[in-house]
């Protein structure tokens, strides 16, 4: 319906609330992404403590390649810091010369060029002249349910598809509903009340309460079994891929569940 690089808004029809909510939760908590998990500091004379820098590093979204990396718990290596298939090493080595130097996310150099920070200009720390920062960071796949740094989405919401009906025989175009609507859904055009921005309607019913007529000349209601999804990616995965993966994960979980049920007889 609407999309750009990071955001997408689409309509889902013919499903119930439980299903869309399951899909939403799968996107938030189950779709894996890459994030820094362990950091080894060799040198840190900056004014921020090691753990604060590690925390900042962890929150930097990394481009995720789901096809060539495995979740550490699914990888057979059993090593604490992982192997080539389940972790990426990013190194950072910056020394300030005679001037102040800001360390950016772009200064991280990954051993796999595909898994690089999504944004190159996130400030990590400012170094005073003579200070230096040298570290090795281990990134791995993880899930949003373990830590928010692994969430592929920042916003992931759904709402009912709205329906606004105007009873023109009762409406005298007083414009009170147009004024009160927080989302500017309505407008008086020529000699009728028009719905100009239907999808922004939040079903708050302010327009119904503002209508001086009794019964009101306007009615808002949710369309049954229709939802508007609103998703915003952090940049680590494309939005389409997030929805796709969430659907796959949901399907896998459901088939596991039905299999378990069958085993029980």
């Amino acid at each position: 319906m609407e999309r750009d690089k990071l955001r997408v808004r689409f309509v889902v029809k013919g499903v119930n609330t439980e299903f869309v909510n399951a899909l939403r939760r799968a996107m938030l908590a189950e779709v894996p992404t890459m994030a820094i998990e362990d950091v080894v500091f060799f040198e840190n004379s900056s004014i921020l403590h090691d753990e604060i820098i590690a925390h900042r590093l962890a929150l930097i979204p990394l481009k995720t390649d789901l096809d060539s990396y495995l979740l550490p718990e699914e990888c057979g290596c059993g090593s604490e810091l992982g192997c080539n298939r389940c972790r990426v090493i990013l190194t950072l080595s910056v020394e300030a010369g005679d001037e102040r130097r800001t360390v950016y996310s772009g200064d991280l150099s990954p051993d796999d060029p595909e898994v690089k920070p999504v944004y190159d200009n996130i400030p990590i720390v400012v170094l005073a002249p003579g200070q230096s920062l040298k570290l090795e960071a281990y990134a791995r796949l993880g899930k949003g349910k373990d830590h928010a740094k692994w969430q592929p989405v920042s916003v992931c919401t759904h709402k009912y598809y709205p329906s606004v009906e105007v009873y023109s025989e009762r409406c005298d175009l007083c414009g009170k509903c147009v004024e009160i609507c927080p989302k500017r859904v309505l407008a008086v055009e020529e000699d009728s009340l028009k719905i100009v921005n239907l999808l922004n309607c939040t079903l708050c019913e302010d327009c119904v309460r503002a209508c001086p007529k009794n019964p009101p000349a306007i009615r808002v209601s949710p369309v049954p079994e229709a939802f508007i999804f609103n998703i915003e990616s952090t940049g680590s995965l494309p939005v389409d891929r997030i929805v796709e993966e969430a659907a796959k994960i949901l399907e896998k979980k459901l088939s596991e569940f039905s299999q378990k049920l069958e085993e029980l007889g």
Partner: protein
Amino acid sequence: MVDGVGNMMIPVRCFTCGAVIGDKWEEFLRRVRAGEHPGKVLDDLGVKRYCCRRMLLSHADVIEDVIKFHELFEKRAR
């Protein structure tokens, strides 16, 4: 991030929704210092929600002040 004296540096993500905002700080600061209206700059940068907008609007970069002491130490050591 939070370091006794407040936010030393711009947080990487919005506290509320988790959207990345750290990458927008330097452009925001530069343009606001150049005299542009902060609200307009935020609109331009695509920062829509008020949770993310307050992150940039209310941030004071304390590290710039703290680091002056370290620069002085450095000078004295020489």
